[in-house]
């Protein structure tokens, strides 16, 4: 029996561990995703994102911990989990030699749909993802972006209550990326619960309702994008010098910038300054450099990069929340 409280959560993972050989890919992951949310699992390569996704999708068995998807335990009832999820993996799950339409119908029917319903949905989804004209052509002739859209359409054939996407935008050109995001946004507006993995902070930032940061097999931070940004620290000012003389430039800035806020890379002639005062930091920096006659090739203010955000998040949270999502 599944009681109503458990069924309320789309994903509920507790203390999930997984090792491959001697390598611990997941070291006690807790993850909660409520229905209707678009949750992002953010992390660098090798953080364990794909391992976690594969456990959620019943493709891998965890060593320890419990995972429930829509109230169904992934180990005890994998088929019940499979009947309510859709998975778009890193590699397109399509038969290249078959037309797009046949792929959709096949996957729909294997998901349990009757022939008529599968054909109807295949036609609808092809239409919706702008593939109607190409539906009769073999997938081999599709562009990368079309493949991704078809793959996503295939994941939607069984109308999943939870859609899992593993790095859906990796390897896509900017145009296709925008198209895919438009499709995902439309799905979210329709209320589909989604979990997607990404390496891109901006992506998680712009689209996700909740962001879970995974690093070295542990969730090191979780919350809304705004929470994380606040925790990841201020913006930074990036200076690229026109010539050598990074040391002199650092000297010029010493009056206004605390040493811990200044990072100098002599080799690439680059200075990175934490913008504690926002735009004022940028203006002060520019003035000080000009006053000392140091030529600047480029000066910009930007969000902290993923690396910098990770550093800030790991150091910010150590000691208080060794593992697990603080929610």
């Amino acid at each position, binding site marked *: *029996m*599944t*009681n*109503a409280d458990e*069924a309320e959560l789309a994903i509920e993972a507790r203390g999930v561990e997984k090792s491959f050989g001697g390598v611990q890919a997941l070291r006690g992951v807790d993850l909660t995703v409520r*229905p*209707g949310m678009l949750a992002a699992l953010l992390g660098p390569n090798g953080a364990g994102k794909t391992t976690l996704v*594969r456990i959620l*999708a*019943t*493709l*891998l068995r965890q060593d320890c911990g419990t995972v429930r998807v*829509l*109230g169904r335990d992934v180990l005890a*009832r994998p*088929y*019940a989990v*499979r*009947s*309510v*999820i859709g*998975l778009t*993996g*890193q*590699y*397109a*799950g*399509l*038969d290249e*030699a*078959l*037309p797009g339409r*046949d792929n959709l119908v*096949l*996957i729909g*029917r*294997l*998901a*349990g749909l009757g022939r008529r319903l599968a054909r109807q949905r295949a036609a609808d989804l092809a239409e919706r993802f702008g593939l109607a004209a190409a539906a009769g052509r*073999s997938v081999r002739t599709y562009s990368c972006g079309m493949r991704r859209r078809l*793959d996503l359409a*295939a994941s*939607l054939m*069984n*109308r*999943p*209550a939870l*859609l899992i996407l593993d790095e859906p935008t990796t390897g896509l050109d900017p145009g296709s990326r925008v198209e895919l995001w438009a499709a995902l946004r439309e*799905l979210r507006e*329709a*209320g*589909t*619960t989604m979990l997607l993995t990404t390496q891109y902070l901006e992506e998680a930032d712009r689209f996700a309702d909740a962001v879970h940061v995974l690093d070295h097999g542990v969730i090191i931070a979780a919350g809304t994008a705004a929470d994380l940004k606040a925790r990841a620290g201020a913006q930074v000012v990036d200076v690229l010098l026109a010539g050598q003389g990074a040391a002199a430039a650092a000297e010029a800035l010493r009056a206004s910038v605390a040493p811990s806020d200044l990072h100098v890379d002599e080799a690439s002639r680059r200075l990175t300054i934490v913008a504690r005062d926002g735009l004022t930091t940028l203006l002060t920096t520019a003035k000080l450099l000009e006053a000392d006659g140091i030529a600047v090739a480029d000066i910009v203010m930007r969000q902290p990069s993923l690396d910098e955000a990770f550093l800030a998040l790991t150091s910010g949270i150590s000691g208080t929340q060794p593992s697990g999502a603080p929610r």
Partner: protein
Amino acid sequence: MTDARITAAGPGRIVGWRSERPGAGRLARDSLLIAGRHLRVLRGNLGRLIYPLLQPVLILVLFVSVLENLASVSGGPYRQFLIPGIMIENVVLTAPITGLALVRDADTGLADRFRSLPMSRSAVLVGRLLSDAVVFFVQALVMIGVSYLLGFRVHTGLPGLVGIVAVAVAFGIALGVTCAWLALLIRDVETAERALFFPFIPLAFVSSAYAPVDRLAGWLQPLARVNPVSSAAAVLRALADGGPLAASALQLAAWTAVLAIVPGVLAVRRWQASP
């Protein structure tokens, strides 16, 4: 046990859920769907369709033309002896494709897709074998047709013909299952390509396919006698000429069962357990 009905907030509703483990009905249905997939690929791709059809014609004509004047056997024309051997050779050459197809699927995102669906997992293997059975069936008909043009005669009428086709299909499936299991053990497509075809050279030649066992080198004879290819060739000859069938048929049946069942179970397990 009844489950709470999940109402997807998404683009549609999931009403209830299917019974936990797909039963025999689901296995049959999904296997047919998978078989349909492979056959549709064959139908839609001339390149993939033409080779399985060309291969039997080619090896029949080549082997007969090259070997015929070199050899003779007691009790009839060499052609009549050789052609059943070539029919089995064709099966042996085709079977590795089954294994390769499976490991190629396992290598792509499609395998993950299938494993994440509430379908019967065995259907991936069974369905592929069904579509291969169709290929073996069509190949057998082509071979019988070409053989007839080359002067091969089936003296036992329709039952003999049906028997020949049945043996070719059954033996092909059994070898196909073995290949599937081996391919899944190997996992690497390129290694599998070499490894699967390699054992079939001795398998085909250390047998009675091209020459009677007592004409082979002495040390090969015991091997040739237990080789399933020998029993398959012997059964085809007996079916064509109306000779004694029982002993070789029994040996072939045993081989077919062993080659199909044990690796079949292991292959399905392997597929299910794949990362």
